């Protein structure tokens, strides 16, 4: 089962890279939005909440289509980024990472928000009465206390990014070596005659990665809790 072909290995490497990049990219905004939803009262609170959760309820193909419209070569944002910064998403691995980040965003927000809500808001007030500006109070008190939730959010997001298929294939297609992740590779293999054995190998690999991610999250959470 472990004699993976070079193409299989390529897909595994791409998947891990794309999911990792997606998680790293989505985590800071997810922490920010989760904190804002948990702590602040502002006009449009409900709208932000709905927007953040939209990718969860929309058909992934629609999300991929929306990304294509916005971030494609001729999309308003895509054209801007390409012209000014040379960042291209369309049919690149970066596009796959963007699609995975957008799809995993709502999954990350929930546990992070819950852990911010669980912490006593007066702890931040205590930090400020001791001279800490709001950003310091956040960095030294609120964020460390929410760390278990942030870890759960990151692991969930990573798992989701790893398995993301619909939005990715709509946005950046399935280009071997560029955007063909494990999921896309399995799908492609199933379309070819005699691809079943190879598909099964890749499926096994994704099970191993998923279990490892879960175990890592458990271990990290236990450590975070032990420090309290």
């Amino acid at each position, binding site marked *: 089962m472990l004699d993976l072909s070079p193409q299989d290995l390529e897909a595994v490497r791409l998947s891990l890279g794309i999911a990792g990049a997606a998680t790293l990219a989505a985590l800071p905004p997810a922490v920010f939005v989760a904190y804002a939803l948990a702590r602040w009262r502002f006009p449009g609170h409900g709208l932000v909440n709905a927007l953040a959760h939209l990718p969860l309820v929309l058909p992934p193909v629609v999300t991929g289509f929306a990304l294509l419209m916005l971030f494609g070569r001729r999309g308003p944002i895509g054209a801007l980024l390409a012209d000014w910064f040379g960042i291209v998403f369309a049919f690149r691995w970066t596009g796959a990472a963007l699609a995975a980040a957008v799809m995993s965003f709502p999954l990350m927000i929930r546990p992070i928000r819950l852990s911010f809500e669980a912490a*006593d808001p*007066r*702890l931040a*007030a*205590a*930090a*400020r*009465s*001791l*001279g*800490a*500006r*709001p950003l*310091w109070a956040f960095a*030294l*008190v609120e964020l*460390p*206390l929410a760390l278990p939730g942030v870890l759960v959010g990151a692991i969930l997001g990573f798992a989701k990014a790893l398995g993301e298929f619909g939005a990715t294939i709509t946005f950046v297609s399935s280009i071997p070596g560029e955007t063909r992740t494990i999921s896309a590779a399995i799908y492609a293999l199933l379309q070819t005659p005699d691809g079943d054995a190879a598909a099964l190998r890749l499926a096994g690999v994704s099970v191993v990665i998923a279990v490892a991610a879960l175990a890592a999250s458990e271990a990290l959470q236990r450590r975070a809790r032990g*420090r*309290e």
Partner: protein
Amino acid sequence: MIALDVTWRRGDFSLRCAFESRARLLALYGPSGAGKSTLANLIAGLARPDAGVISLGGDIVVDTAQRIFLPPEKRRVGFVFQDALLFPHLTVRQNILFGRFFTPPAERRVEFEPVVETLGVAHLLDRRPRHLSGGERQRVGLARALLASPRLLVMDEPMAALDRPRRHEIMTLIERMRDEFAIPMVLVSHSGEEILRLADEVATFSDGRLTALGAPAETLPGASRAIEGGRFDVTSVLRAPSGVVEEAHGVTRLAHPSGDIVVAARLTPGPARVVVRATDVALARSRPETSVRTILRGRIVSIDKTDSPLAFARLELVGGEMLTAAVTRLALDELGFAVGDDIFAAVKAVALDERDIGA
């Protein structure tokens, strides 16, 4: 010096008060919901007044008319919470040093060692807050606030969650902090005992309004009765020069001008202050022969009858100190006590002196 004139509204409740105080320790006193905690939060910057001015030591920290609102981190007002509110993810040492880290070096007037020693937290430094008892937590909370070198220390019912021995321990520490670190303090409390012992000025509140401001002994006896359950909190403070420890019986005999005060503990040398609860005082016309060893002589200067079965007799003891006794109206009538009568007061269960605990 604190000077303020503020209005704060939420729903049906409104806090509106104006006063100024130069006290070393100002107490804010009143029943729950009277607005005293809100006022403490306004002073520290943890709440924002709807209108008004607050100045601390001559610096304006809030002036709504001029749109001035100094955030809490710029006020240098230490805050001690009722439940200590230590940072659970940090050790005691990290908690204590938190404020110091944010204090500009030039303004670090309070040093680590004396605070740790005064508050007796040296053996706790490497522990996490969840492994501390309630009293230990509160001591760490006090140390944390002190080490930020605040120009004012606000304490919001720091002893409310503690049992009686721990309360006395914390009172002792607050007294030491007041005297050793010379930081003005504001204490929110609904305990007359705490205020009589610690404060040199008290502002009493009822329903969001300031009802009195003055020296605790004059301000509180009347006010405390209006408050539910307050009568058991009415106390008097007596001062005596250094006492003599009688080793055979393990007691300390303090020479008070009106008679010897016997404290059931070995006090360390030095002037002592003794807290006496009004309900622990019995009155007699002649020197009573009972198991009570502390018999003080004085004269009744006022009798305050209430609708309740208890009345309050104010005694001027020989030497001039005042002592309040809570006795039943029945006893007053049957024994015929009247203003001007010379009297013996048997003081039972003299409450702990401050010095025997921390020492």
